[in-house]
């Protein structure tokens, strides 16, 4: 049985998508957070062992695209 080799990817998924969320009027809301899709995709792609797998195929659906000024994916090169 394999242990923990998917740990960092699973951790990032949980930290960004799960956990308690406070009332929007009290916090700097997620919509204001400039964590663009490209950054998140790169954050995950930089996990070397994940590069050979198809990580984050549908990640873009998780990010409000109307908050993205241009399509950052096209302008970003993932270094292998």
């Amino acid at each position: 049985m394999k242990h923990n080799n998917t740990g960092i990817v699973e951790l990032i998924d949980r930290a960004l998508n799960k956990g308690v969320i406070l009332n929007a009027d009290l916090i700097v809301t997620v919509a204001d957070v400039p964590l663009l899709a490209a950054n998140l995709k790169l954050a995950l792609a930089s996990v070397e062992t994940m590069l050979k797998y198809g990580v984050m195929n549908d990640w873009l659906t998780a990010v409000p695209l109307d908050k993205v000024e241009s399509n950052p994916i096209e302008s970003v090169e993932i270094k292998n």
Partner: protein
Amino acid sequence: MADDALYVYGIIKFGFDFDWKEKGINGENVYAINQGDFSALVHDCEEKAYTSEDPNKIKELIVSHNRILDKAMEVFNCVIPLHFNTIIKKTETSPQLNLKKWLENENDRLERLWGKVKGMREYGIRIYYDKDKLMQEISADEGIKESEENMEGKSTGLKYLLQAKAKSKIDEIIQNKINNFKQKFYADIKAISGDAMLSNSRISIDEEKDILLNLSILADKQQFEKIIRTLERKEGKVFSFQIAGPFAPYSFVQNEAQ
């Protein structure tokens, strides 16, 4: 710029304010703000989300957030984790007062959540199956045998039709078997864990394998060991497993507290 906001990592059941020696995101000093039975682990920050153009920096921020949660689980038996980048801002009142009011208002829900997660850890379990090997194992299935026997002595055209029909039947049998395995694995794991849920992860990993189940489970040490033993008994030619964690119980606090 003055620190006029609070970054919140998570909530612990602890009835006092205290300065912690732990360093959080960007080496910030982490301390606890108490209200009633619960305290929030925080650091002072600007009213601005943490982000970077550098992907490694983002990863580092998330890992730092999680390191505080890991430490809290070790010291305080568990932690109710908050979403990464939870920053309480100043309104008509200070962020400290806003946080205290929130803790006070949410006390009952936090109490229920703490009852559920104390002493527990979250793990990710992915169960994979090998479709070819599964097919070999179930090739002795009566329905499949019958389909094959029906071909004997038939003309080429009829054989073609029967083969197409047999393939469809075999696919159906396999799908039913897979569904049965899915339900059985889920029921078995849920029965020996604190809680289990299908993971709605947006991340796909190891696409070379067929995934049977992607679960998040909540378990204490004994439950986790029992789950591992159960999975190891089932591991073989057909099924394989991947375990990730332990994590703070991110998946088991989100609905209740919203």
